[in-house]
């Protein structure tokens, strides 16, 4: 491995964890990070859509 490659590898090894740590800290300090996870919102949406389908099928079974 050449000296240049080694320097770049060392830089990446230092900067990437530093970047991830900084990003994680910013996200934790940001009020928007307190919002519910997207998957939770989609689960609620899915549940509502499924409720509509189930109720409609139930009604169709009765008509």
């Amino acid at each position, binding site marked *: 491995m050449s000296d240049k490659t080694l320097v770049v590898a060392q830089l990446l090894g230092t900067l990437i964890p530093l970047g991830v740590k900084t990003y994680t800290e910013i996200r934790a300090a940001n009020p928007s990070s307190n919002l519910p996870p997207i998957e939770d919102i989609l689960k609620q949406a899915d549940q509502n*859509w499924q409720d*509509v389908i189930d*109720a409609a099928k139930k009604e169709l079974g009765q008509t």
Partner: protein
Amino acid sequence: MIKRRIGALGIILAVIFLAACPKQDVIRKLAVVSKESSAAIKLFQQNEIQSYNAGLVSKEDHKAVQEILVSVGEIGLALDMHLRIAANDAQALDGLNLAIKDLDVLTVEISEKIKDESTKTKFLIAIAGVRSALSTTAALLGGQ
């Protein structure tokens, strides 16, 4: 030399992080639109069922409404699935535009199949509300 490399890597990392943030914001907004829309349609359905049970809606119209609502629910589930697998804004927009096209087809069906004007109008307003929320979001994303 090393300073320039540190600077370049810093820029690359910043771009990666900045690119990641808007995507999550867009998907979140679309997920909220889907959740709010599903709640609105569910409410419309409950009201329609009450009206039918009270004898205010004919059997034929009730059947047509519920058949169309099955399709509306399936469009919603498909949109949610699309949002889950979207890797970027463009893919999220594809799912959104697909849902809008499907809702346009259903709008025609509502106009043709439902006879009672009051039921038809209420259903069209409910669907138009969902379509409007989706198309506004699509416009903000650079779509329709």
